[in-house]
């Protein structure tokens, strides 16, 4: 990462620190759209980070985009920044120009298929579309008789049934029946739901790594400030060992997520090597989220179980993210099959990375 790229991430961190305070996250969950935050992100060119300049994007390198999303994950940013970046990446694969405003993507579940008919109209319903009700456009991967199609759809044209994830963020059901996209272009050869799903999993992996850093920071701080039995609970060995393990899980998640981000950046999010890295990252970060959130909550005691305390901003998101775009089990099976197909003697070369 060069200094210029650090500036982008630094700028994002400053915005997150200034604006994404606990009250804003709570208000967002209650249904208040944080428009000032979104506008600031948009003005700074962060929402279209992954769009090429030619298509109206900010043209930020993919690796730096992942670094940005790790920070967004760390700060529980309650707007569809990741989803808009993912949508821009999807549209970019078909050379479709980006609209401003929040976007999301569909489908987000592996067995969902959106179809596009001969008349150009879509059919199909996608569940668990993050932030759909808050977006202006949905980038859709659809199936025509001639192959995969990437389409840009106005959210207002779709029927939306509101729902929410366990993180308290919109996870809406979107029906595309009869909707005509504003643009629709054949997807590049070989591009399919699996590719979209893998990119989504890579994004969730870096968000998880960021979220784990957050709950480590919060837990360390809480344990130093909270006194019981006449001393800060940080002085108890049981607490120290728990937090040391949380630190290990956070570091492992960071390592796994960074490996996936680098592999995706090197291949623009496509290809089997990157897919293996993403499978490993989503598996390992999901595991770390499970272990890490349990330790963080145990350290915070009943306080961390209240709505008033902000710990749940990160922990509920970690629980949602570990299941989105394939959970640990899904990706472990994928990865295990990839490894087994190569054979026993290729296991270690697989681990060290194929050149």
């Amino acid at each position: 990462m060069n200094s210029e790229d650090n500036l982008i991430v630094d700028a994002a961190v400053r915005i997150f620190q200034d604006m994404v305070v606990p009250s804003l996250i709570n208000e967002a969950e209650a249904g208040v759209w944080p428009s000032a935050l979104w506008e600031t992100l948009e003005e700074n060119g962060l929402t279209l980070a992954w769009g090429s300049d030619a298509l109206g994007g900010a043209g930020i390198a993919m690796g730096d985009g992942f670094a940005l999303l790790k920070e967004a994950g760390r700060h529980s940013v309650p707007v569809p920044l990741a989803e808009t970046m993912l949508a821009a990446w999807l549209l970019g694969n078909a050379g479709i120009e980006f609209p401003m405003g929040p976007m999301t993507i569909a489908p987000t579940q592996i067995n969902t298929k959106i179809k596009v008919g001969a008349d150009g109209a879509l059919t199909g319903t996608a569940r668990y579309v993050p932030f759909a009700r808050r977006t202006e456009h949905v980038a859709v991967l659809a199936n025509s008789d001639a192959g995969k199609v990437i389409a840009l759809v106005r959210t207002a044209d779709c029927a939306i049934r509101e729902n929410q994830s366990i993180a308290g963020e919109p996870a809406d059901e979107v029906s595309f029946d009869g909707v005509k996209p504003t643009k629709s272009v054949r997807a590049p050869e070989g591009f399919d739901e699996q590719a979209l799903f893998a990119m989504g999993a890579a994004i969730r992996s870096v968000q998880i790594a960021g979220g784990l850093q957050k709950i480590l920071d919060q837990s360390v701080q809480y344990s130093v400030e909270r006194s019981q039995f006449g001393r800060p609970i940080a002085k108890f060995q049981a607490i120290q060992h728990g937090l040391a393990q949380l630190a290990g899980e956070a570091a492992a998640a960071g390592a796994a997520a960074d490996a996936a981000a680098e592999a995706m950046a090197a291949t623009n999010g496509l290809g089997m090597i990157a897919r293996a890295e993403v499978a490993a990252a989503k598996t390992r970060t999901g595991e770390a989220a499970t272990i890490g959130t349990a330790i963080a909550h145990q350290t915070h005691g009943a306080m961390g179980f209240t709505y008033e305390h902000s710990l749940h901003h990160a922990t509920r998101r970690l629980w949602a993210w570990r299941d989105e775009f394939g959970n640990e089990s899904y990706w472990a099976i994928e990865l295990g099959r990839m490894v087994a197909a190569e054979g026993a003697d290729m296991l270690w070369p697989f681990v060290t990375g194929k050149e």
Partner: protein
Amino acid sequence: MAAGGFRFPRIDFSPELKALQQEVRAFLASERASGGFKPVADGWAFGVDLEFSRKLGKRGWLGMTWPKQYGGHERSSMERYVVTEELLAAGAPVSAHWVADRQSGPMLLKNGTEQQKLDILPRIAAGECYFAIGMSEPDSGSDLASLRTTATKVEGGWKINGRKIWSSGAHFCHYMIATVRTGGTRDEKNRHEGLSQFLIDLKGPGIQIRGIRNMAGDEHFNETVFDDAFVAEDCLLGKEGEGWHQVTSELGLERSGPERFLSSAITLTEAVRRMGENPDAREAEALGKNVARLKAMRRMSLGVSALLQEGESPVVEAALVKDLGTKFESTLLNDVRQLMPTEALGQSTDDYARTLAEGLLRVPSSTIRGGTNEVLRGIVARQLGLR
């Protein structure tokens, strides 16, 4: 605030490193195919094969980073990393020379006399000279500074009295680097100050080595008893009273390598051989989870090496990797065991069943040797600002 500030910098393999990696892989594949070695669980701690150690010496894969004048090869620490991780992943029997190559040689290079360096280092690099660790004692495990063994100044040298325990391979090793007390007592507040390190020839007078059989049946570690054992003046390594500082840096070398997460990797490889190319979902899931863990561990371990190469002393990062890595070594065996259970030992027909059984019986040592996970978590907790 980012708690701990842990850093695991990324390392890119140069074409030279990749070529070396391929060279070691080809060597190991051909050795295994020709019966040059049989893969062992925990091969760096339990796989003693003097012939194999000598072969590695001939290849130039021991003492790799040392100056040529002492038999070394003046290669980078990353080149050494690449060779060691390949040996570990293959379950090669590298235990005989492991301690000498990893910590005793570097220790001598730093603190030995010119004569000692010229005499001993080339033999280590040839795979012919082996070292035992002399840290723990019957009453001093995790609390190393409480050790009792003493060295007393006498005419022309020192007399050593006391007992060292868990000295792996002392029965075939040539030397031990022992940390002993030259001043103060174990009960004093400044007890760290009275420690010094000595190079001890295990064939010397007043030394008795008694084997301690472990629960896996291995005749592996020992109790080494010193009864007025005389060592010459120049066997004091470094400075008198600097032993604590020296042993801490020796432990840094001991804790930071890839052996702290790769001890059971060979069993995962052999599990894949049994599963075949089309595992069922249960098998694929267990395999995938462990490969995911392994990949993350390796990246962190490479990060520790990067810090070492940058000249830093990544004590805390190494502690973190060793805590996670040794737990992983155990989890891996338990995950594959549930897919393909242990077999009666006499019927262990393939390398999977054999390395699984060996591994399960040896793995309780992983989370203890070189610093218990409790001690390591204490180190991490201090960095987090908790103590």
